[in-house]
């Protein structure tokens, strides 16, 4: 692989310009609606964070190389070339000031997928060597170790042992012929072991067979976040190979927003063929279990609570109805946030922003939007379904002196299951 350079960056941006991108630039009516939809613009009022401005370098390449007028200007030497300084200037806009939440794409009156273009333009920045250090490290570890955080198999095995010993639940690795293969995010393995316990409890009650692959347990895909499709492809292929080797019918995407987008939507395009198995987010699966009467719950949370829709799951994945149906099983006082569902405001930490230390201050500024939503609701508890959202929300709440616990929905459902005493069973 050749070293990063400005020339390589420009070439990679050029390669991303396809018919949809060309039509998006041609169709843009400069209305500014994308700015008003962007968390980073609305909370800073800095016009540089206007979403369409973030792809200005890509527009320059498109204009100069793919339009008649641009070609004439280029031939006359009237085109301003893209320089190292340009990449430096836009790097913070493209990575720090965009969580790839997709809100801009949703409001665009001419249907431009601006968020998709920012994802594409990151390919050029990564190739030019202008990606944040945190994302470079995460991507390197994902390729070399299999986890962006460097979580190795013995760590997962230790967590499985820990859960098995303390609960009596069985969690198998590499069991062929089962129905489901569950993925995990490193964040869940490291910070929230309760997620793994929760799915083990739920799948046991539903009577479903499942396993985790020792070769591909990681759901997150740093290749998508940094903008390196070749690496994203490698990470998807590992999961596909493992799922096909085990012969599972379905891969369960965990409470990880972009992990879901990567394996559910980007994956088949990256590897160039359809999967031989289905992919569902854990909330989609749990709601199917609910509809089929496979999970029985008891008791209701009395706290006034709301649900934070992770962008990748709700806006990009369309999983909006399911979490509300699940909350209906266990919550007595659910209240909806303003702009809930597909139009929900991002927590500010998606798209690699939370992995980018340089963006911390900006992320906390952007959190003011979520703070305003929560201030209006006055909830006791916030529920979500993405480990990264959860940490970002916890940090934002703490920074704003807001005493609201953040809980994963899968864990909440598991805590309300009607089940026999697990430890009693084990001891017996």
């Amino acid at each position, binding site marked *: 692989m050749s070293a990063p350079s400005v020339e390589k960056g420009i070439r990679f941006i050029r390669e991303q310009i396809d018919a949809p991108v060309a039509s998006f630039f041609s169709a843009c009516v400069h209305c500014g609606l994308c700015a008003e939809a962007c968390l980073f613009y609305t909370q800073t009022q800095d016009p540089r964070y206007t979403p369409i401005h973030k792809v200005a370098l890509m527009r320059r390449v498109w204009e100069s190389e793919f339009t008649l007028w641009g070609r004439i200007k280029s031939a006359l030497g009237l085109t301003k070339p893209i320089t190292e300084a340009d990449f430096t200037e836009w790097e913070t806009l493209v990575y720090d000031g965009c969580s790839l939440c997709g809100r801009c794409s949703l409001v665009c009156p001419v249907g431009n997928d601006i968020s998709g273009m920012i994802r594409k333009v990151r390919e050029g920045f990564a190739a030019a060597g202008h990606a944040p250090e945190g994302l470079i*490290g995460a991507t390197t570890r994902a390729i070399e170790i299999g986890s962006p*955080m460097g979580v190795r198999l013995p760590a997962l095995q230790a967590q499985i*042992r820990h859960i098995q010993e303390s609960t009596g639940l069985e969690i198998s690795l590499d069991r062929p012929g089962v129905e489901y293969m569950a993925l995990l995010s490193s*964040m869940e393995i490291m910070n929230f072991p309760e997620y793994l316990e929760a799915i083990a409890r739920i799948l046991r009650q539903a009577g479903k067979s499942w396993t985790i692959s020792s070769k591909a347990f990681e759901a997150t895909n740093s290749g998508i976040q940094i903008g390196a499709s070749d690496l994203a492809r490698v990470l998807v292929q590992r999961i596909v190979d493992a799922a096909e080797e085990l012969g599972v019918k379905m891969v369960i995407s965990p409470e990880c927003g972009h992990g879901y987008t990567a394996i559910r939507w980007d994956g088949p395009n990256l590897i160039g063929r359809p999967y031989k198995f289905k992919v569902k987010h854990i909330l989609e699966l749990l709601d199917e279990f609910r509809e089929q009467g496979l999970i029985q719950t008891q008791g209701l*949370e009395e706290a006034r609570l709301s649900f934070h829709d992770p962008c990748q799951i709700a806006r990009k994945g369309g999983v909006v109805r399911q979490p509300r149906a699940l909350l209906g099983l266990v919550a007595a006082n659910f209240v909806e946030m303003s702009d809930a569902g597909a139009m929900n405001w991002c927590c500010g930490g998606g798209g690699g922003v*939370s*992995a980018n230390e340089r963006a911390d201050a900006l992320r906390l500024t952007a959190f003011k939007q979520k703070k305003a939503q929560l201030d209006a609701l006055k909830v006791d508890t916030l529920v979500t379904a993405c480990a990264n959202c959860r940490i970002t929300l916890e940090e934002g709440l703490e920074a704003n002196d807001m005493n609201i*616990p953040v809980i994963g929905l899968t864990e909440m459902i598991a805590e309300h299951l009607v089940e026999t005493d697990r430890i009693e069973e084990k001891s017996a």
Partner: protein
Amino acid sequence: MSPINNDWQFKHALDDMDGYHQRQVAALFVRNVLDLNPDPRVLKALEVASNYDSDPDEMNSTIKSIMQAVLESHARCGAACKWSDQAGYYVARAAAACLTPRSFTLGKDPAWQAALSCRMARTSATLDCLDCEPVTESLKQHKILSDYLESLKGTEP
């Protein structure tokens, strides 16, 4: 009372305890893994958890400060994992469990939550360590709880 020898007895003994005794015994579990996190906020949380007459203001400020300790010690998304640091996170989580209201934890028993986090802390500490002894934190917790229950004999009506 016969000694506690397994998690079934352990959990049922915890279930039978009131909130104050749960907090006290949870603090004892955390003290057994304190070597993994020297943060003074952890110690302060244990002191407050063990004190029957803790002032509500002091309780609130201690909860706030231990929650900060939890957030400061968690693994950052995408950051290289250091399991020795992660052990500290689980100790902070265990200390927070001693004080966190049940409404914040889906009604889970604080002592059981603290026990699990302490076990995770000890497990985490061994993951980067080739020479470490196998983890036996659960057995130690059974003994701690047995001794605690024994110590209560004759002290309560």
